């Protein structure tokens, strides 16, 4: 009962103190907001780059053409060997008739040429998706070992280069996010430390009138939590509204159909939760550190 009363008073006092030290509170909130907005932008960027890379990778497939004389048995053999290959994510069978239909639909010239030929000159095939694009070459070579396989092609060139470029960007943005989070943690906790530094007399007086360490510390920790939370609210609004606006503006795609943005929901909700969580935890930690300095323990 006593502990609950002390806790309840700590929460009440922390709210009072946020309002009574209005200018300092505002400074801490604004500082947290600005830095968290930066974190939010970096996170959105990083996640989108990751998503784009993933999409591109998904586009990249190995097309395995089979010899004309391939038997049903051999086809089953290939299926089971594909299933056993570690790097193979999925595969689908595409018959020569499907290819023909697709080609006919794609252009008039091809249509008339194919019409002219009585027999379908195309080959049956498997379209293979891999787990790791880096090992695309090895996988295709392994498939080629089957002598009834005519060829195993993959898009050597453009797409791969694009993917490796995006992979570099992805790594850079992750490093930027981590660096920003560290800087933010330092900035917010320092600002909150400063607001408490200006009130070290209070801590001294609390000690003199016989307040225990825990009852001195609790209101300050809650105050840090409140400041951090309020500092996180503006970036949350910025993230949700800003990203939805951006998404609508581009209709979900940047430059081309290839670069697709992540859908705003639940993506922005997750980012918001991370921002709020960061604000609260860093705020609490900052004030814990500050009070510790002025409490003789």
């Amino acid at each position, binding site marked *: 009962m*006593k*502990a609950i*009363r*002390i806790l309840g*008073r700590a929460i009440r006092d922390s709210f*009072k*103190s946020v309002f*009574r*030290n209005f200018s300092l509170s505002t400074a801490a909130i604004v500082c947290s907001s600005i830095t968290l907005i930066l974190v939010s932008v970096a996170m959105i960027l990083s996640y989108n780059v990751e998503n784009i890379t993933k999409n591109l990778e998904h586009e990249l497939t190995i097309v395995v053409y089979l010899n004309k004389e391939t038997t049903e048995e051999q086809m089953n053999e290939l299926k089971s060997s594909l299933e056993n290959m570690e790097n193979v994510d999925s595969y689908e069978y595409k018959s020569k008739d499907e290819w023909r239909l697709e080609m006919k639909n794609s252009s008039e010239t091809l249509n008339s040429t194919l019409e002219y030929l009585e027999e379908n000159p195309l080959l049956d095939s498997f379209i293979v998706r891999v787990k790791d694009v880096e090992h695309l070459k090895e996988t295709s070579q392994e498939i080629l070992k089957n002598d009834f396989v005519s060829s195993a092609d993959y898009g050597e060139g453009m797409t791969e280069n694009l993917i490796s470029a995006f992979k570099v960007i992805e790594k850079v943005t992750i490093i930027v996010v981590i660096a920003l989070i560290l800087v933010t943690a330092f900035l917010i906790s320092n600002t909150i430390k400063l607001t408490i530094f200006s009130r070290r*007399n*209070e801590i*001294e*007086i*609390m*000690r*003199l*009138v*016989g*307040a*225990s*360490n825990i*009852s*001195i510390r609790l209101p300050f920790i809650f105050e840090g939590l409140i400041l951090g939370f309020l500092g996180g609210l503006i970036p949350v609004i910025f993230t949700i509204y800003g990203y939805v606006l951006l998404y609508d503006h581009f209709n979900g795609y940047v430059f081309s159909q290839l670069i697709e943005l992540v859908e705003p929901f639940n993506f922005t909700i997750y980012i918001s939760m991370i921002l709020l969580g960061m604000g609260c935890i860093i705020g609490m930690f900052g004030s814990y550190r500050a009070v510790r300095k002025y409490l*003789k*323990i």
Partner: protein
Amino acid sequence: MNLIEVVNCYKTYNNGVTAVADLNLEIEKGEFVFVIGASGSGKSTLIKMLYREERPSKGKVIVGGINVAKLRNSKVYKLRRKLGIVFQDFKLLPKLTVYENVAFALESLGMKETEIRPKVLKALDSVGLKEKIRSFPNQLSGGEQQRVCIARAIVNDPKLLICDEPTGNLDPKISKEIVDILDKINKKSGTTIIMATHDKEIVNKMKKRVILLENGVLAEDNMKGSYKAHESN
């Protein structure tokens, strides 16, 4: 029964200055004691050791059964809850109202609101500040602030009230009022009061026990002392 016992107490600061040397003192429950002496005589150090802001380097300082020398930092609050402290510079929390300043000490004990309110009002009534409970410290005069400080010190009915030059910042008339309040507390509730002061007039008028410190040594301990006797020093 002795409330305070100081036995062979020494205090040497880190810079090598010895503020208190071989001090022996006994103060009984219910006494009103003045501690006087020139600046640097060690009276502030003695007062600070009583509420464990300083720790004796050697010897014992026992306050209400607690040996201050052995008290750990994290347990200091246990001693401070048993005593009230009145400071020269009041040390009120500027962002709290008069009521909140006085209630604060009780709140940190986890006392119920229904117990706190009558205690705070009683304490503020006894220093004549019941009408100002909603004021903030900067809206009060020096004398009023010191009365809030006294109310805060006595709100938990301490056995001992330590006053570190409580009238140092106040004019003679207000100083007299403050000492009268302290005297009333001493007589009415039997609270032991130790008051460090420079104020000759007050010491001479009150005719209480006077402890004179000189260079950290007990120079005189007079049951009906006055400042006059030391003026030649």
